[in-house]
């Protein structure tokens, strides 16, 4: 029993260290997937808690970042559980302030276009172009076939090409 208590104490300190090292990166990924700062924080916090629960079984501590990233992607995907809920949530987020589309900055236009994509396309694009993962790595992380990832990226970028002029 004494050994267990010691393990918990060590992991508490380890977690603080891991959080300091990985939180910013995790928050940026979470933010790009959700488009909402508060939600991004919630998801990252949840991801850290979940990963902490498995620290005892983590064979490769160096793989913490990959493990955390996968957990964040899964949490973002399952966050709304239903497309209808995701859509309503995003509508609530974009209700205010009212802005004429012509007045939007390029980055705000991109943010809105990114958030309008289906979650699968958005995730694949963020992992490929922000996290700089290969198609195979993205497929593994998303639990999809590499061909499906290629298709998701292609269609998502096609939409972004039309809406915000991305030419990739």
């Amino acid at each position: 029993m004494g050994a267990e208590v010691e393990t918990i104490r060590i992991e508490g300190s380890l977690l603080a260290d891991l959080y300091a090292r990985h939180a910013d990166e995790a928050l940026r990924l979470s933010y790009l997937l959700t488009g909402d700062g508060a939600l991004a924080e919630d998801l990252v916090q949840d991801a850290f808690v979940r990963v902490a629960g498995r620290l005892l079984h983590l064979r490769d501590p160096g793989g913490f970042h990959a493990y955390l990233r996968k957990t964040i992607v899964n949490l973002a995907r399952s966050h709304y559980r239903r497309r209808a809920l995701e859509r309503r949530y995003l509508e609530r987020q974009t209700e205010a302030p009212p802005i004429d589309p012509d007045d939007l900055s390029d980055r705000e236009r991109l943010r809105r276009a990114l958030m309008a994509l289906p979650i699968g396309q958005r995730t694949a694009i963020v992992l490929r172009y922000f996290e700089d993962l290969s198609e195979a790595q993205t497929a593994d992380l998303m639990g999809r076939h590499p061909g499906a990832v290629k298709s998701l990226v292609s269609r998502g970028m096609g939409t972004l090409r039309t809406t915000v002029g991305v030419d990739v």
Partner: protein
Amino acid sequence: MNETEFRHQLFDLAKDAPSGSSAPPALLRQARRRVVLTIASSVAIAVLVVGMGIAGVRALQVAPTPADPPTPTPTPGSLGALAYGVDGDIYVADWDGSNPVRIADGRPPNGGPGCGPAQYGGEGSIWSPDGRYLAYWYNSCQVVPTVMISDPDGNLVTSFPGEGWLISWSPDSTRVAVWVRWGETIGIYGLDGERQTLLTLPPGMMAPGDYDPVWLPDGASLMVPYGVEIPLDGSTPRKLPWADAHEGEATYSPDGSRVAYTTRTPLEGLVLLRGQHQGGSFVVGAADGSHAQEVFGARVWKPVWSPTGDRIAFTSGNGTELRVVDVATGTVTLLAEKDGSDILLVLDFSPEGDRILFSRAEDQGVGPISLWSVNADGSGLRRLVTGTAWGDWLSLSPTR
């Protein structure tokens, strides 16, 4: 914008993310608790496994049960079964969620490394209008998800690949429409699983966002937001007459002669005016665009027209207020109201139009989700099922 500029834009966008320089104390407390629970539960599971082995007890598969005990209110005569998905399984239950039977069982991961768990799910009209079949999704480690069509006992009738969320049944129950390539092509499939028609949506016609096609009441066309009609005969898609200058969601009367739709602007202000985005209207008019009348002067979500044609249910207040409008008189009645973080969505009507099925998602959709029903006069509010935000009542209505 080339690839390098796009990457820079993404990085620039990501700067808006909150900063996490130090671990929140609450997080550490939670994480420590989680580790303790992991240890405790490992011990508990080990004890349980040993105990079960000794006793020779088989694990029971517990189906979701109605959250509220049955009430003595009489069951509407022709109100049929409720279909819904929970935890990757599909269930068919009595109208009030009682006596659930699992007809499709989500299975453990089987697709190799990296593949998520296989699961079934449904959103939209799961039941065919004639009540003979159900349509739902099967997701495993495939390139694209699979549409499954089964009978009410779960016996598979056919399956084929598709994309999107909503599987839309034709009014005559003989076909379904799903995306073949999201946002680009739509497939019409028969009950033999053969694709009968492939429809192409011209670029830029559909509203930006994650939407699926639905059938128009005459069964000759599909519709995608905002009000774009896609004829099955392959002729050019067009804006429906009522949809000109509007943007929102629509529901047709059972006979197809009238349409109710939401707009982001007040009825009189069809030109988008600065500062009025948060207003909007709920409008009922003829399907040809004439006789449009505002019935509710604020933006509403997901209106559903009753099969009897006399009522329309919707939510307002950013999804926190459930309302019904009497089409003949225009009288709007508030049926249920939740706090600001809940999301309520109307899903279905009973065949008599006297009862409404709706979902509740707490805490901005992150919290508990459940299915509820309420009578059209506001009485009889009850929770039917927990753990899902989508269900479909079998209506057995020829007009549905």
